[in-house]
């Protein structure tokens, strides 16, 4: 009996310790390291040699090549969200508020968050894999010994390109999703399109759209920093590259969701409507 008690105590002890370790190692130490990596990297935005060609190349990589997925997901998100909004609002005979409900939800939350998640998976994963491969095949060493700083050449342009491209893609997502909503409203639910447009215009402020775009830029910053960091410090061959990609994408996605909450709060404070 006493034996079992002791065992149980031990297990609980270990459990608490491991939570402590997780917090300390993963949250504190890792966040610190990523912070240093980030500052180190973006200091190259302000120092020669500038890498404009790389920035443009990665904007096209992050942006242009994700366009189709973003339009597809945007369109369908608009459709389902409008449908669900109608289900809810029709209970209280408030169908005329479908437009603003969908408009606010998309521009402030779903647009940036879903775009961020999709781009983190697609472009972020590619970044981690690319840098990881370059690390394990000594291409990063080759760069450095040729007198080229890897953070200057590989990391800084990717972060900048992501910060620029993610809001642009979010704008596309927003637009396509609202078109989807309008379509469902008008042709499937047979509600008045004029009311949809009029109410949306009345309730959705440009500042709501901006809020979403600012969030998207922050998401771009986070996923590109996390994924390039993971790739840059890849260890141990092909398996290491797989791990780096996997961890990079998962960490990016989780942090996008978490940051979203805090961003909403912070932006709300500035706009004075709280959460």
């Amino acid at each position, binding site marked *: 009996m006493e034996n079992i008690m002791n065992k149980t105590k031990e297990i609980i002890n270990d459990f608490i310790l491991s939570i402590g370790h997780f917090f300390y190692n993963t949250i504190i130490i890792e966040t610190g390291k990523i912070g240093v990596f980030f500052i180190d990297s973006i200091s190259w935005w302000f120092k020669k040699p500038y890498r404009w060609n790389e920035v443009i190349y990665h904007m096209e990589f992050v942006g242009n090549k994700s366009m189709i997925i973003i339009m597809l997901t945007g369109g369908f998100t608009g459709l389902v969200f409008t449908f669900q909004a109608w289900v809810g609002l029709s209970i209280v005979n408030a169908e005329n508020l479908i437009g603003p409900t969908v408009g606010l939800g998309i521009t402030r939350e779903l647009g940036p968050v879903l775009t961020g998640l999709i781009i983190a998976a697609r472009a972020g994963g590619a970044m981690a894999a690319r840098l990881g491969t*370059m690390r394990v*095949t*000594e*291409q990063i*060493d*080759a760069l450095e*010994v*040729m*007198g*080229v700083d890897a953070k200057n050449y590989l990391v800084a342009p990717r972060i900048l390109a992501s910060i620029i491209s993610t809001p642009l893609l979010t704008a596309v997502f927003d637009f396509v999703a609202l078109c989807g909503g309008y379509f469902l409203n008008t042709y499937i639910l047979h509600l008045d399109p004029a009311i949809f447009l009029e109410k949306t215009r009345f309730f959705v402020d440009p500042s709501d759209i901006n809020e979403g775009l600012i969030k998207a830029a922050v998401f771009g910053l986070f996923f590109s920093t996390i994924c390039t960091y993971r790739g840059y410090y890849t260890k141990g061959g092909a398996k290491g590259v797989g791990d780096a990609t996997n961890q990079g994408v998962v960490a990016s996605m989780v942090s996008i969701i978490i940051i979203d909450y805090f961003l909403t709060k912070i932006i709300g404070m500035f706009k004075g409507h709280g959460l």
Partner: protein
Amino acid sequence: METKEFAVNVEHLRKSFDGKEEVLKGIDLHIEKGKITFIIGFSGTGKSVLLKHLLGVHKATSGDVEVLGHKLSTLNHDQLIEVRKKFGVLFQAAALFDDHSVLENVMFPLNEHRKDLSKAEREQIASSRLKQVGLEEKHYNKLPSEISGGMQKRVGLARAIALNPEIILYDEPTTGLDPIITEMVDNLIIETHKSREGMTSIIVSHDLTAAFRLADYIAMLNAGTVLLYGTPEEFLASDNELVRKFVDKGIHRK
């Protein structure tokens, strides 16, 4: 007796990573200019770590590394880059940029450091380097993944000599290659060495046959120190037990 000129002076070099056990435990090595020096030793004795100190990629925990008269520890970032430009490095797996074509790979260091030249001039230098290592023109626009391992080595070497370096470092240039390509790479090393007056070649290798054939000097590392440094003849004559073991095994394997 003529006075020797040294390309690399390593004095009392010690290195430990993050306060862990020392990898390099006091290396003294003076590498003569214009010669071919092999660095040999068992796996994990710190050969690659030593190479990275010569390039300033790793910083010494204590001791000094002096390259072509520059003490690396006293240089700032920009000065270090100037010194690195005097090096050519051929990595074990060639380390070609896999999203750049063969020609673009060789042009890369020129694009970075010879902006004074026109694009056509840089292209011309790059293709003359590729000719020097014997790569045919029809491969110039291929990606590294589309050419064989032996060709990748040639391209890697062409890129290493693009800026006309004074010192070339080879990290295990022939490990894992078949005998034919090994001989080809060995011959390239000699030709490249002769292609420039005063060129210093430093080769990390497990291939003792090549070491005895090509080297002016051989340094054997063991457990983070220099066990023996001398001419191939001195190595064959050595009665140090570890040296004998390495030499016998290496020659036996061939």
